[in-house]
């Protein structure tokens, strides 16, 4: 490993880290704005132009709030909880390909931190770790509502990880690769996007992604109306802020994942027919990728202000009795179609 390579990756890591934090920050504003518009009101518009300084005010407020650690709480675990949540949220963006190669001088820079050949598995591992932050935080609070939220989070994310994994298996059967970089580069243009071959798989994946991010209609771990604040009832100050942040970063990462796996990532229609140079295609590709991500984030929020929350038994029923059988059927169907195509149409 040469120094320049490490430096290049380091810069990329810092940029991606900053971008995901800024997007998480402004997601809070976007959420409130979208909530406002969908309920025929303005949302926050007092801090700065269109309320653009609102996230900064909220962040500042979080830092200056009194930090309370309950007397009955397990102090080390109470601190580890939000730390783990934010760390796992941040590291999952490492394998996402943000764009193609950028040629600077005679160096070719890949806009992906690590193109590991088991990228999909890595994502799954990190997502599975993510629930530990919630579980540990909820348990360490020594509060029955927190514990209830934590238990819900644990069983919910275990249930929906199965459906998510099964829906991805069908995708992997089509792409034949576990590396997210490969999966995205296969989908060049518009007709090669995986959504056209895996619409059902995408639907299942998206539903499970909603559940994994603890978003409405699957926000039972938080569930203000019945569990006060769910797993973060006892949290205050920036620890609460970190939990909120990790939720929004998770949303950003899963939007990026959905855009990359099913909607062609940085690929856009007619990308090679416009006669642009490599670097320009890469730059436009990155912008297109972010546009797709923002569209998905908007969709997340749009769903949030439309659907009511599931009841817990309904959630479990949807996960185990509908999504998992559907995902298995999708695998079988994909297999049959692949074989039929290979034997009769080749």
């Amino acid at each position, binding site marked *: 490993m040469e120094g320049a390579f490490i430096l290049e990756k380091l810069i990329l890591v810092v940029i991606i880290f900053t971008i995901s934090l800024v997007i998480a920050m402004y997601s809070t504003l976007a959420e409130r704005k*979208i909530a406002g*518009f*969908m*309920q*025929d*009101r*303005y949302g926050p518009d007092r801090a700065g132009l269109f309320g653009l300084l609102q996230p900064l005010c909220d962040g500042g407020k979080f830092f200056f709030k009194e930090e309370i650690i309950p007397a009955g709480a397990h102090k080390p675990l109470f601190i580890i909880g939000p730390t783990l949540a934010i760390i796992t949220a941040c590291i999952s963006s490492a394998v996402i390909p943000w764009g193609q190669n950028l040629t600077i001088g005679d160096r070719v820079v890949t806009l992906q931190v690590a193109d590991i050949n088991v990228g999909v598995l890595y994502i799954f591992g990190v997502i599975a770790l993510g629930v530990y932050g919630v579980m540990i935080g909820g348990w360490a609070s020594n509060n029955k509502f927190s514990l209830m939220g934590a238990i819900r989070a644990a069983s919910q994310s275990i249930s929906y990880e199965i459906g998510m994994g099964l829906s991805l298996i069908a995708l992997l059967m089509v792409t034949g690769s576990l590396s997210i970089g490969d999966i995205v580069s296969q989908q060049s243009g518009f007709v090669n996007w995986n959504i056209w071959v895996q619409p059902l798989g995408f639907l299942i994946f998206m539903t499970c992604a909603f559940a994994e991010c603890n978003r409405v209609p699957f926000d039972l771990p938080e569930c203000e109306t019945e569990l006060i604040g769910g797993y973060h009832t006892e949290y205050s100050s920036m620890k609460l802020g970190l939990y909120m942040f990790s939720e929004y970063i998770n949303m950003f990462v899963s939007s990026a994942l959905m855009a990359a796996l099913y909607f062609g990532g940085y690929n856009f229609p007619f990308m090679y027919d416009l006669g642009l140079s490599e670097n320009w295609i890469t730059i436009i590709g990155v912008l297109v990728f972010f546009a797709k991500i923002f569209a998905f984030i908007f969709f997340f929020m*749009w*769903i949030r*202000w*439309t*659907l009511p929350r599931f009841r817990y038994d309904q959630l479990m029923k949807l996960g185990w009795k509908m999504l998992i059988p559907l995902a298995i059927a999708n695998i079988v169907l994909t297999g049959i179609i692949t074989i039929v195509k290979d034997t009769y149409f080749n």
Partner: protein
Amino acid sequence: MQSLSNRKKVLEQKPMNFWERIYLPAIAKGLSITLKHFFKKIPTIKYPEQIRPYSKNFRGQHSLKRDEEGRERCTACGLCALSCPAEAITMTAAERQKGEEDLYREEKYASVYEINMLRCIFCGLCEEACPKEAIYLDGPHVTADYLRKDFIYGKDKLVEPKIDLVQLTQQKSL
């Protein structure tokens, strides 16, 4: 049994059909409704910048009027206090002394005139009772305060400020 009103409706709960059970059409419908609201005109009035016009007969804080020479019109007859259903008005009458003719219009005037704004119901009966056209509820909203005693408005708050008519006409002619 036959219902008495003949308006009884028996609701039938049908089992959901396939499209209803997969929820997706219903979700799409809900999403289209919220999206419609997303582009709707927002009826909010941004208050401090934008003030909704008051009604013409809005009744706000009382003001004790002066006549065209700047003299207080009130003669402390007590009809307003008598007409007040909330008993919010009290006053003390005094006799006009020599040399005060430019201050008070009548020979008797109110040396103390107090309205308890916590009692007042802004009904406007004092306006109607006044024979001298001395009191009108044409002021702004009565604002909030911290102490009960601060809601008892005296003459310092009620009597309208003196306008120098001579100066005003001069300014207008300029």
